[in-house]
């Protein structure tokens, strides 16, 4: 089973994502960017769902560090964000995210399709 890392400080969002994905993937949860970065080298997720508005180190900074780390830089990363503007998608892709999913998640298939597409790259 492929491993999905969910980096999100809101426990209800983590619970929702776990409920949507755990039949298909091994889901690991991290409540901060620092906790995630500390464990990624050992735990080797296959894909990351990364909240943008994390307290402390925000998602954009976490992404920067993933892309700067040799062992992690090719990891597919999906931005999870409450900024619901379509124009935002381009902005996140420009920043180096591989995909973008708006919160609250209301379409399970949209999420699973985007994950499947990135994992089959």
């Amino acid at each position, binding site marked *: 089973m492929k491993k999905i890392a969910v980096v999100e*400080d*809101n*426990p*209800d*969002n983590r*619970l*929702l994502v776990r*409920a*949507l994905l755990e039949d298909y993937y091994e889901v690991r949860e991290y409540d901060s960017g620092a906790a995630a970065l500390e464990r990624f080298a050992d735990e080797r997720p296959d894909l990351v769902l990364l909240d943008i*508005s994390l*307290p402390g180190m925000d998602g954009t900074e976490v992404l920067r560090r993933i892309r700067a780390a040799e062992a992690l830089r090719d990891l597919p990363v999906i931005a999870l964000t*409450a900024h619901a503007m379509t124009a935002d998608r381009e902005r996140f892709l420009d920043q180096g995210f591989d995909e973008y999913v708006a*919160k*609250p998640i*209301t379409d*399970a298939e949209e999420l699973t399709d985007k994950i499947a597409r990135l994992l089959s790259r």
Partner: protein
Amino acid sequence: MPAAGDSIDATTLDRLQKMVGDKVLREITELFFEHTPGRVAAVRAARDADDLPGAAQALHNLKSSAGMLGAKRLQQLAERMEQLARSGGDDESPWPLVEQLEREYEQAAAALRRVGEDAP
């Protein structure tokens, strides 16, 4: 499911229930009850300390949790207050809205409790 009153958007709640089922919906609702009062209290404490960034973070999470469960009015108010907090409160301060936030939370919580009682 659901009969929620106007604090809760039934369509959002229904869609969530269809996505995750009754058990997870109940767990998400429990998390809302567990965490939201602390966030509302954090916003009030941030007002007392005039801590706009602190308020913005609590409001952001509050907005997200409320949105997931269809607590539209609470979500929209938290979003507006978050924007005011992030813009530094120069044009308009989020602080006069704290009491309204507390009221909206109480109403959303009461509506969600009613939904819970009606659920199987």
